[in-house]
């Protein structure tokens, strides 16, 4: 249309890709010209996201290649495609929740130097980008505090910041209101004029037709065709999208239905759906369809207590309590989840255990399960459903997808209830099993049960269901009788439905939420201020009771006690910021005193410097060992450092079975050297912390640390070497442990294996009390230092108050529990939980190895 050159920016040729049991892409060729907006559309599962992931470098294609400016390119990981000027904007947020908007936008390429970045410039540029999108988000606000649509805007702003030649947007408007969408289109149009190529995935035909130059339709992993948007209309496109060949025979529909069983009235949830009304009769199969992510999953999950909702639901005429899964089951509702590996199966367990788990009381007497009766019922189901397995004791993790799904069905086929909800019942299942599943669902309905089937496969809905509800934008937009349902009708209703979000976002009063300096300061340092207040209270109270507390002598002795714990907490904090933990901290300190009692002594063969270096090297080795166990052998942080705890403690005992050795007096003098009344070691420690806080705020390494701790998966995709960050943190932790050990050795003047052990818990206490999240991503050096001070302060105060020193164990434990409970209650764990799941999948997939 405008200033279009005919140069191809990116082309994929002959791409094929198959996953176990599915051919996702078949010989796909596709190109996007310079300065073109090219829309890619297709039904759910047509292969759009697979194609985009191949372009991005998430996984390789089986066949075919990618060309940029005519030259072939290979991407092994997302950061490779990023380096080639390809930027992706995903539908689900790929941002680091614990960083602010500016940090997210510039992550990994912060303006300024290589180690220290220019915060002002960074904020300013980020603010400009966000404002270009017409959004009034302060670039200094934390991403975790933004709404879904604001996050989408930040994601787009980040993509724009790359100045990429190729921009790929996966349903960018699904969370945006009409005015926000319009602003995005204006920007895309502007970029197009500048020569950027844009691949735009969307299900909203009106907007696709208005913004795109050309439209390519994908169906069943194959290209149907490419049309120019100026010469087509939505009817033609819908016709291109549909028309898949029918590869399955469906069981005949019911002739008549019975009584109304389930009735849903005015069901709504604040975030995902509204005004949902429907009913299901006995013997009826109700289908729910539409484009994925329009609220249909939330609707059915709310009927099983998995999403919160308001409205009335009656079963057999009586109002049903569906507030939790167990209550829903009692009310007669069963939900069979889409993701059977995550929500349906107990993978390591046998088929028998998987099938019988919800029905155990059936075969039980006094809590003991009658194995024979259980086995008999299970075997009946295995035979009835033709599950192919040599034995009912085989673990389900070994079965094929189809057989796994049959196990799930057998579980619920065993004892029938009133309402069954099947979420994507045939996902990842072979054709033969699909047929059997359709037959089973129909049989269940015929027995007088109300069945709801949620599916993204329109063919499946049309063939199987008696009635279909089409959901778009969180509400039912169309209702079709199964016999009359056509693909055109269902897809057409779903993709042409206009969003009524327009009014919602327009009526919302947009505040210019520029953050004040104070509020930004408070966000980071509120726990620290709280600690400071607590310190003052304790100090005031103790000073009131004991005149010796406020003497310079006491402060000097406090300082010498703070130094080693502060050093230990320094390393512990880095590890905890990454969501890990270093239990070997204590033993490493012990071991350092033991080594020091041989290498830093009066008549040693080593000089003091060499002796100290040997101690530090030992600490680094411990850290490296932890890093290798965690990163290379993939043993969890907890178990790895538990194992090294034992190993290092044993080693320390071998070196120094009983306390002994005499530390060199010169070294003692050096460690205890005072500047005025303040020990120099303390001053050095404080300086270290100041440096750390500065690096956390302004250093690229600090951002990397927070990013990796907050969301390792996203950090990895942005090219951060997450493996090195983690191993580095453990090495640093070992190093600070040996530094702390040296100070302890100087204080006690000898080697003592018991001297270091308490540091494991006290260092953790100091860090979590200082406001760090044990899930990673949040911590401040200031908070940790104040946490350390508090720990030592309480000890000291209790001494002055003549309280038994034994109380320290009680308040240390209690304080830790209190702090962690308070902080974890504040954070929204559902989000964290999902992130952790993501991370677990990521780690277990072994992709992290590539870094």
């Amino acid at each position, binding site marked *: 249309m405008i200033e279009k050159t005919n140069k191809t920016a990116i082309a994929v040729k002959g791409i094929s890709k198959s996953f176990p049991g599915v051919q996702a892409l078949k010989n796909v060729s596709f190109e996007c010209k310079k300065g073109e907006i090219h829309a890619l559309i297709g039904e759910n599962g047509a292969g759009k996201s697979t194609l985009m992931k191949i372009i991005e470098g998430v996984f390789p294609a089986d066949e075919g290649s990618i060309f940029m400016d005519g030259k072939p390119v290979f991407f092994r990981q997302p950061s490779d495609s990023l380096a080639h000027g390809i930027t992706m904007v995903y539908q689900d947020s790929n941002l680091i929740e614990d960083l602010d908007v500016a940090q997210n936008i510039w992550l990994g390429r912060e303006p300024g130097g290589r180690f220290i970045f220019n915060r002002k410039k960074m904020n300013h540029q980020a603010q400009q980008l966000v404002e270009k999108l017409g959004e009034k988000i302060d670039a200094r606000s934390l991403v975790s505090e933004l709404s879904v649509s604001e996050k989408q805007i930040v994601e787009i702003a980040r993509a724009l910041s790359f100045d990429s030649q190729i921009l790929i947007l996966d349903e960018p408007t699904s969370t945006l209101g009409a005015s926000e969408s319009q602003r995005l289109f204006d920007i895309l149009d502007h970029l197009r004029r500048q020569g950027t190529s844009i691949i735009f995935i969307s299900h909203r035909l009106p907007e696709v037709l208005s913004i795109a130059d050309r439209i390519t339709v994908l169906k069943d992993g194959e290209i149907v065709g490419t049309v120019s948007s100026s010469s087509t209309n939505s009817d033609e496109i819908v016709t291109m999208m549909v028309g898949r060949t029918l590869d399955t025979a469906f069981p005949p529909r019911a002739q008549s239905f019975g009584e109304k069983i389930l009735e849903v009235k005015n069901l709504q949830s604040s975030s995902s759906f509204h005004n949902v009304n429907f009913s299901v009769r006995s013997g009826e199969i109700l289908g729910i369809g539409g484009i994925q992510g329009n609220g249909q999953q939330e609707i059915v999950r709310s009927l099983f207590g998995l999403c919160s909702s308001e409205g009335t639901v009656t079963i057999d005429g009586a109002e049903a309590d569906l507030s939790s899964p167990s209550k829903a089951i009692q009310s007669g509702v069963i939900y069979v989840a889409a993701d059977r590996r995550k929500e349906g199966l*107990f993978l390591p367990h046998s088929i028998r255990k998987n099938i019988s788990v919800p029905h155990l009381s059936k075969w039980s007497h006094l809590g003991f399960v009658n194995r024979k009766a259980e086995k008999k019922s299970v075997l009946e189901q295995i035979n009835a459903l033709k599950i192919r397995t040599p034995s009912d004791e085989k673990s389900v993790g070994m079965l094929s997808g189809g057989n796994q799904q049959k196990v799930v069905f057998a579980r619920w086929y065993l004892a029938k209830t009133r309402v069954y909800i099947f979420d994507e019942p045939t996902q990842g299942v072979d054709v033969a099993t699909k047929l059997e599943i359709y037959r089973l669902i129909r049989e269940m309905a015929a027995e007088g049960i109300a069945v709801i089937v949620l599916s993204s496969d329109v063919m499946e809905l049309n063939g199987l269901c008696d009635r279909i509800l089409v959901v778009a934008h969180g509400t039912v937009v169309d209702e079709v009788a199964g016999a009359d349902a056509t693909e055109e009708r269902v897809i057409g209703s779903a993709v042409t439905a206009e969003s009524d979000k327009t009014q919602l976002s327009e009526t919302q009063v947009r505040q210019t939420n520029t953050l004040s300096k104070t509020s930004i300061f408070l966000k980071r340092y509120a726990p620290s201020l709280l600690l400071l207040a607590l310190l003052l209270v304790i100090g005031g109270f103790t000073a009131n009771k004991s005149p010796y507390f406020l003497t310079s002598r006491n402060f000097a002795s406090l300082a010498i006690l703070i130094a080693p714990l502060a050093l230990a907490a320094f390393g512990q904090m880095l590890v905890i910021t990454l969501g890990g933990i270093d239990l070997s901290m204590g033993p490493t300190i012990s071991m350092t005193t033991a080594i020091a009692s041989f290498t830093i002594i009066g008549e040693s063969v080593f000089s003091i410097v060499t002796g100290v270096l040997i101690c530090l090297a030992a600490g680094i080795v411990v850290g490296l060992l932890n890093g290798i*166990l965690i990163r290379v052998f993939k043993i969890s942080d907890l178990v790895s450092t538990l*194992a090294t705890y034992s190993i290092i403690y044993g080693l320390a005992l071998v070196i120094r079975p009983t306390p002994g050795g005499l530390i060199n007096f010169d070294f003692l003098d050096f460690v205890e050297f005072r500047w005025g009344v303040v020990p120099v070691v303390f001053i050095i420690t404080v300086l270290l912390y100041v440096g750390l806080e500065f690096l956390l705020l302004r250093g690229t390494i600090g951002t990397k640390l927070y990013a990796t701790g907050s969301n390792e998966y996203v950090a990895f995709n942005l090219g951060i070497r997450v493996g090195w960050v983690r191993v580095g943190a453990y090495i640093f932790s070992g190093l600070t442990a040996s530094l702390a050990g040296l100070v302890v050795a100087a204080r006690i003047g000898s080697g003592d294996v018991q001297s270091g052990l308490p540091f494991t*818990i006290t260092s953790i206490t100091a860090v979590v009390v200082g406001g760090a999240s044990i899930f990673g991503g949040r911590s401040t050096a200031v908070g940790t230092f104040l946490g350390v001070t508090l720990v030592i302060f309480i000890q000291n105060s209790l001494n002055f108050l003549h309280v*038994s020193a034994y109380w320290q164990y009680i308040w240390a434990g209690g304080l830790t529990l209190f702090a962690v409970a308070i902080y974890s209650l504040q954070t929204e764990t559902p989000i964290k939980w999902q992130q952790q799941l993501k991370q677990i999948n990521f780690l277990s997939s072994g992709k992290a190895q590539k870094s």
Partner: protein
Amino acid sequence: MKPTKSFSTLPESFNRIGAVWFAVAGLYALASIHSPAMFQYGQVLNLLQVAAFLGIIAIGQTFVLLVGGIDLSQAGVVTLVNILSTSIMVGKAENIVEAVILCLFVSLFVGFINGLLITIFRVTPLITTLSMNSLVYGSALVYTGGMPHGKIAPAFEFLGQGHFLGIPVTGIVWLTLAISIGYASLHTIYGRWIYAVGANPQAARLMGIPVNSVLISAYMMSSLFACLGALVLTSYIGLPSLGIGDQFLLTSIAAVVVGGTALTGGVGSVFGTIGGTLFITILSSYTRLINQPIGIQFMLQGLIIALSVLMYRLVQKNRLG
């Protein structure tokens, strides 16, 4: 890492009986060849007697690991029970019931609070139980003022020091408990729930299993068996001893992990833990017998924890195909 292949050629019994028994037999044979004293009947009985303390405590730890958690507060509970029971009994038989009931109550309470913090307050199991250990140990210290006093009643000695048909009572108590609890965990609804919650808490929730209650109960089981183990141990030594529980902090986890229970939850059994207990006990008594410093024991134990995790992962991978 080449063993992946060789594991698949191992006999089926390797998986069914459990790798740990091969390890126990192998270690015992090696130790006996190197130091024939290990093979004597008296030494076998002695092994059984001392293995019982760890064995009973590790039964409880098994439950926590099966639900995917960890309990580092068992050490504190053992110390506290040792202190409490001796100070209440002060050598008098009429105080036994009171002492035992109080110890059981306190332990169950500790387990309950652990479970509550982990489920309702969403504190991670590690932080919860590590802090709880400090709290409980501190309570024992404060209670005694650092100077424990009291002793067990002579009537209580039979449990830890007695013999029945020439076999130490501790061993009989341990094996009876372990086998009956092991059987129950596989054959009761509650036991099946424990495994289900450990393998997939979200799926368990969708099956209508009361996940939080199951989790809390697992931590209560852990404290309960720490208490029972501590009572038997106290009966054996007869006196209070501060910090007597510390040795179990890591060994109870080591015994369970060596016994084949996965730290990821849902896989393993109390029967495996019997083997794991024997393995750890044989190892430590062997290192003592050949006069190796105690530090070597700790080093071996740490290595074994890491190695077990790696080895069982290979076995598991092999089984899941």
